[in-house]
């Protein structure tokens, strides 16, 4: 469905010049700074896969998705989306993909949602029957009818995201690109959108590429993950390893009464120290927090504690380091 080989995107920015007529000089300046946003990545995605595309901020996720959409032209390398090169056949490609960029809506701000959808129907030349059928489906799965006559600016973030999702799928795209679609959405709506993505994937065989910073998204909907960091893919594989890591790793944050040196603890490792606080990483199947606390408190008096679930970045790091060690 998607084949990407040796894809690169380097951003070049003229070095901004301050001072009198600075921006005029910037216009003619020959000094550039280069950001290697995507730096030689290759992958292949099959029809029907749901791929989690994850990595820290600035890793190059949005940049890659924009290239897949044909908005950006690659610096070098090859992209084939369902046989098309996106930036060369931008319009044809646009018909077979749907995209949601969580940060900004693609709907008309001041008119009811349904008007935006009608317009998309015209832009994509969706047939009357298909439009009707899809609206019914979205009503079922997303409760679109609850707010379809409300202007977008009056929608809650969760409603807006549901509307955006509907807009992206109105023309039955073969592929769906979701760039942080869950941003700012509460737990209930998140759950709903996840179920929706799964259903769309199962019933219509839509291939999904999902960018997220939320571990649970990966756990629940992705069959495969790709981790990108500094423009390079550092992990590509089954999502199970990720799930296992997430399942077992926890962190105990302990604030001591006074400054203490690092010390050895069975089944746990100090991963971070800050003032009187220390972070102990442990595997929750090897040891329980209570025995860990009991052990620590025999050595030093404790002021406060908390158990943290790992953040996605931390897991990414462990996986990354793991593969790096193997390699």
């Amino acid at each position, binding site marked *: 469905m998607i084949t990407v080989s040796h894809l690169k995107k380097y951003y070049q920015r003229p070095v901004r010049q301050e001072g009198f007529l600075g921006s005029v000089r910037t*216009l003619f300046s020959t000094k550039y700074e280069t950001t290697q946003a995507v730096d030689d990545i290759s992958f292949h995605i099959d029809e029907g896969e749901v791929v989690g595309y994850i990595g820290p901020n600035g890793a190059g996720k949005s940049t890659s998705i*924009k290239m897949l959409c044909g908005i950006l*032209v690659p610096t070098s390398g090859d992209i084939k989306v369902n046989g098309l090169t996106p930036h060369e056949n931008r319009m044809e490609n646009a018909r077979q993909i749907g995209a949601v960029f969580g940060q900004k809506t693609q709907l008309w701000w*001041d*008119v009811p949602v349904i008007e935006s959808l009608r317009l998309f129907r015209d*832009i994509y030349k969706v047939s009357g029957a298909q439009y009707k059928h899809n609206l019914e489906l979205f009503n079922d799965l997303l409760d679109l009818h609850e707010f379809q006559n409300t202007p977008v600016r009056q929608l809650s973030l969760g409603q807006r995201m549901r509307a955006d999702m509907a807009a992206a799928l109105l023309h039955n795209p073969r592929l769906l690109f979701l760039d942080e679609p869950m941003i700012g959405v509460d737990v209930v709506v998140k759950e709903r959108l996840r179920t929706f993505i799964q259903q769309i994937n199962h019933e219509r065989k839509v291939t999904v590429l999902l960018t997220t910073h939320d571990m649970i998204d990966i756990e629940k909907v992705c069959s495969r993950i790709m981790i990108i960091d500094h423009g390079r893919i550092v992990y590509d594989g089954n999502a199970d390893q990720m799930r296992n890591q997430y399942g077992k790793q926890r962190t105990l944050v302990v604030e001591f009464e006074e400054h203490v040196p690092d010390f050895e603890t069975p089944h746990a490792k100090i991963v971070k120290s800050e003032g009187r606080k220390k972070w102990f990483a442990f595997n929750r199947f090897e040891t329980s927090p209570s025995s860990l606390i009991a052990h620590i408190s025999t050595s030093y008096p404790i002021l406060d504690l908390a158990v943290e679930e790992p953040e996605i970045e931390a897991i990414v790091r462990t996986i990354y380091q793991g593969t790096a060690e193997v390699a």
Partner: protein
Amino acid sequence: MDSLRLYFKLIRIAFQARMQYRADFFTGIIGVITLNVVNLGLIGILVSRFNNLNGWTLWEMVFLYCLWILGHSIYSLFFWHIRALEDYLIQGTFDQFLLRPANPFILFIGREVQYLGLADATFGIAGFVLAYTNLGLHWDWVKWVFFGLAIVSGTLLETTINLLVACVAFWTGRSRRVGGLIMQLNSMIQHYPMDIFGTTFRVVVTGLIPVAFMNYYPALMLLDKTDRLGGWGWLSYMSPIVAILMVYLSARLWNFALQRYSSSGG
């Protein structure tokens, strides 16, 4: 043809969006009318006190002003937001124009409308009718056709000049201030007949930033004053051609800018 259909649909939505702010509508109309009345009032006082301005009588000046405002009204109805292009670029909303299977320019142009143009149009028509009667004009069909062409050319010229300037934002990120300055030049032209100015100025507004073709030159033709140009009388017929030339130029720049946008990421 498809593009045109799409454009009308977009415009319909844009109007609907505008109508959400109905209170602004009336104050806006009042504001624009006042502005125009004051502008013309000043000219009116000057010309009536001194009889004429370099051979231009009161009603000829009104005609000149209204010819401009008629073209301008269409521009401000449909193309006003070209100057806001930089906002689309900065906020990243420009991306969605490239995400659709449709012409990005149509999508951009159809995104907004500005009802204030309606006030300009009303004012322009009223002023034109008064000027036409008071000047005792009796046009043949050639003049009427040229009049129509002149208005459309005026719209196109203002639109393309603004588009050319707005496209600079693809490189510098900002362009609106420069656009503002050019529109100052523009408003001087709307107020006063260009022949009162010095040669350098005339060359600039004819050849470099062709705002003089929006009303001054066609007005000379329509008012039978082409002899004021001496050997350059043919310039008064050139508005449509200059407009087409500008459309061509700005289309080239737009396409070039789009390429640059998609290779640089804006």
